[in-house]
């Protein structure tokens, strides 16, 4: 049953939905949004851009037949078009609807395909905003992948938004941090947009998207050098000033966490991969990087000459590193053992008990989880059932 905004005002439904799902996680919000009668007929709108695959995957797990609207502005990168087909097939989505501008409108307003050079807003209106508006006429609500961290215009984003008293906009990922998006893609082995690896963290139409330099805002490559922030489908009053590139800033360093506190990495001899472990002559200055899917048996007989082993944690939920550490210790490795990557402060005691000496974390994680949070778990030797059971207490 379609919702009649005159009978059930959008603002009331949005307020109720936000109250009801305030404490829910992204997946739960999406799942409920698809079925809650207060939401009504709903579609996912996706650009099949850099991070779109997260919501598409969540949707495919819940309901592959839910409608997905893909706006083909006919100005997209060819990579986006092939990625769109690849993702839709891989996830088994059965109702992807491609939305385009009406040919007669394009013929009338942008016959040469050069409108974007003269007036980007008019181009967005023609190729994106208007076709989407038409497609959404049949829906009471639509799902977007917008997140709070994406800028000041989005900083107070709620799960459910009132779009001009006409429709509800659902933002299941509103509270996600950049790392959550990465974790989700890694954990679910999702295919990545090919342009991400080539320096495009946010992807729109080809003429108006450029590469982003390290350290720049991920959306800095959209309409670069223009006052524009949003294409118009998410238009909000109020402007953001995106900062310029940080000048001459020192490349931030990873932090080393030990029982003593935070410190800089004192290892300066570099790391090699397991396949590159060479002659024992390299010893004792050899340090090896191990991915989390290493088979520890493949290292039998090679541990003798290694000074430091660094085990990768691609996500805090990937607990293989803990068993790898224990195995290496049981195989007789006595050198330095380091966990590196997405390790949480709350996991520090586990890492130490499993056999690690230290943890290496990114500047971003260092900022989010200050030393006090690690210190709370630094007393890892007490309250430990394992040492009692092994007689090492």
């Amino acid at each position, binding site marked *: 049953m379609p919702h009649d905004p005159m009978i059930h005002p959008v603002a009331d439904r949005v307020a109720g939905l936000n109250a009801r799902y305030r*404490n*829910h*996680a*992204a997946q*739960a919000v999406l*799942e409920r949004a698809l079925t809650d009668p207060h939401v009504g007929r709903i579609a996912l709108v996706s650009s099949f851009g850099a991070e779109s695959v997260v919501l598409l995957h969540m949707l495919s797990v819940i309901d592959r037949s839910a409608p997905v609207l893909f706006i083909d502005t006919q100005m997209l990168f060819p990579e986006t078009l092939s990625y769109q087909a690849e993702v839709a097939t891989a996830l088994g989505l059965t109702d992807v609807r491609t939305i385009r501008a009406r040919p007669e409108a394009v013929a009338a307003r942008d016959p040469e395909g050069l409108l974007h050079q003269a007036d980007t807003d008019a181009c967005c209106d023609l190729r994106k905003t208007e076709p989407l508006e038409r497609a959404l006429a049949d829906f009471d609500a639509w799902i977007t992948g917008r997140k709070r961290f994406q800028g000041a215009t989005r900083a107070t984003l709620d799960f459910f938004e009132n779009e001009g008293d006409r429709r509800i906009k659902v933002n299941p990922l509103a*509270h*996600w*941090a950049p790392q*959550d998006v990465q974790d989700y893609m890694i*954990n*679910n*082995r999702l295919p990545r947009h090919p342009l991400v690896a080539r320096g495009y963290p946010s992807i729109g139409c080809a003429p108006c998207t450029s590469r982003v330099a390290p350290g720049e805002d991920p959306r800095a490559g959209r309409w670069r050098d223009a006052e524009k922030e949003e294409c118009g489908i998410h238009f909000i009053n109020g402007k953001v000033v995106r900062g310029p590139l940080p000048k001459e800033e020192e490349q931030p360093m990873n932090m080393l966490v030990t029982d003593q506190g935070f410190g800089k990495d004192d290892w300066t001899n570099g790391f090699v991969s397991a396949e590159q472990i060479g002659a024992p002559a390299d010893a004792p200055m050899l340090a090896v990087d191990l991915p989390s899917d290493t*088979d*520890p048996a493949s290292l039998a007989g090679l541990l003798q000459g290694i000074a430091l082993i660094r085990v990768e944690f691609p996500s*805090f*939920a*990937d*607990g*293989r590193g*803990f*068993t*790898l550490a*224990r*195995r290496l210790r*049981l*195989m007789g490795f006595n050198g330095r053992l380091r966990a590196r990557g997405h390790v*949480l402060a*709350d*996991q520090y*005691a*586990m*890492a*130490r*008990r*499993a056999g690690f000496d230290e943890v290496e974390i990114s500047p971003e994680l260092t900022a989010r989880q200050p030393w006090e949070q690690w210190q*709370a778990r630094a007393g890892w030797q007490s*309250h*430990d*059932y*394992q040492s*009692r*059971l*092994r*007689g*090492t207490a």
Partner: protein
Amino acid sequence: MYKYNDFDEAFVRERVAQFSAQVARRIDGSLSEEEFRPLRLMNGLYLQLHAYMLRVAVPYGTLNSRQMRQLAYIAERCDKGYGHFTTRQNIQYNWPKLPDVPDMLSALADVEMHAIQTSGNTIRNVTSDHFAGAAADEIEDPRPWAELIRQWSTDHPEFQFLPRKFKIAVTGSPNDRAVVKAHDIGLRMIRDENGEAGFEVIVGGGLGRTPMEGKVIRPFLPKADLLPYLEAIVSVYNLLGRRDNKYKARIKITVHENGIETVRAMVEEEFLLRRTAFGGADQALFSQISDAFRAPAFSVGPTVAYDSAHAGDPVFRAWADTNLARHRNPDYAIVTISLKKPGATPGDATAAQMRVMADLAEEFGHDELRVSHEQNIVLPHVHRANLPALHARLIAADLATANIGLVSDIIACPGMDYCALATARSIPVAQEIATRFEELRLAHDIGPLKIKISGCINACGHHHVGHIGILGLDRAGVENYQITLGGDGTQDFAIGERAGPGFAYDEIVPAIERLLLAYLDLRDGQEETFLDAYRRLGPGPFKAALYPEAERGRKHAA
């Protein structure tokens, strides 16, 4: 019963303090729900359809009266005055408010309980035979082993972030009441040819969307090797288990995809390495644990009161004949208190009922209670002379339902009424079946029968191992119930076979009625149970009863 030592006590208090700080960070907004999730899951706190849900561990289902009273207190203070006992021998509170949770955990710690590892991708609360320590058919009480496993698995540094959740069950008896073949690891105590007790180790069983019977990985494991062997299995799984798809991440899929031979070879190799790390301290600890589980001093006395009540009081007799099981001491009985009154929610108990059960355990039952995976409460040691008085008190508390093992003793998951994953209602179906057979007065005539109902494909209601299993699904927005037949969770393990097309919500109870009336016609005398009749006759005649239309059509065609 096991009593916390200073170490256990300090451990649990430390965890409460840690979690209280995390809750405070969540409430003041410095932790988002996404960041808070793994932390709350490590402490048994779920987010459900309507609210948070706290799942409290009842290790191997054993409680004393003080603990049961505390559960009643928490139900009154932080919930709506009741608790829900689950198929994992736990208790769940469905309506706690987040700011109350630290207080709840602290109240639990006061009686040596916790909610640690009742959720998350870790080794969950160990389950066991609810008749342990009392059953006549037992080789050894499995609970000291279960307690040893609890200590070993608690906060195990390697195993807090496994590919998926991991469940271990132990039974000390050849008659399996702990469904060990449907667990990630099942341990069944057996004797070798020299009479020495040890474990048959079973791995890779499970129900859920891909039901599988566990496979024997080690036919006989000496008891002293238990922890290093378990550690070998779980560490092999931690590295080998799939992490790309949560529906393929359980060890049953790992075993299925790699083959039991490959997994066994890897485990045995790992075991040799792991064994070196255990120097006997675990066995010393075990013998201390074991002392705590010594049988109570059974009282001696005449059982005349029981005999005369049994002869003279038909209501008592009906209850005694269904709800008592044989105790190893012939003057004693094992009492099962049914939480399955027809029309009520299976497994729910009010705070007042919990207090009555605690009182009865204290007065008549050597201060012991058990939660069974069939969602009832067991008093394992009651002298027969006390049974009439106990029964009278149960009647007064509305707890004297005489239906253990019968048609209305149904396992049901919470279903769409509480669970965010559910696709259909299950509790109302259980209630209506129970009420219907109450009206028909056929329960005792039908005899032993296990009906199990799940409200979604995840199978929390164990429908695969029900003699009659009911699975509620969502078909294009309409509830639809599939029936499976012939499942069995005991030592004769079998996964039920799907009978045919599903039934609508208003058709499912009549379908069960047709099925059971057909059984009464088909059986070879009163002694032949539903399951035996199904095994003798096969699905044919039962399907015919379920689908009379199709049957008529077939005959016309013939």
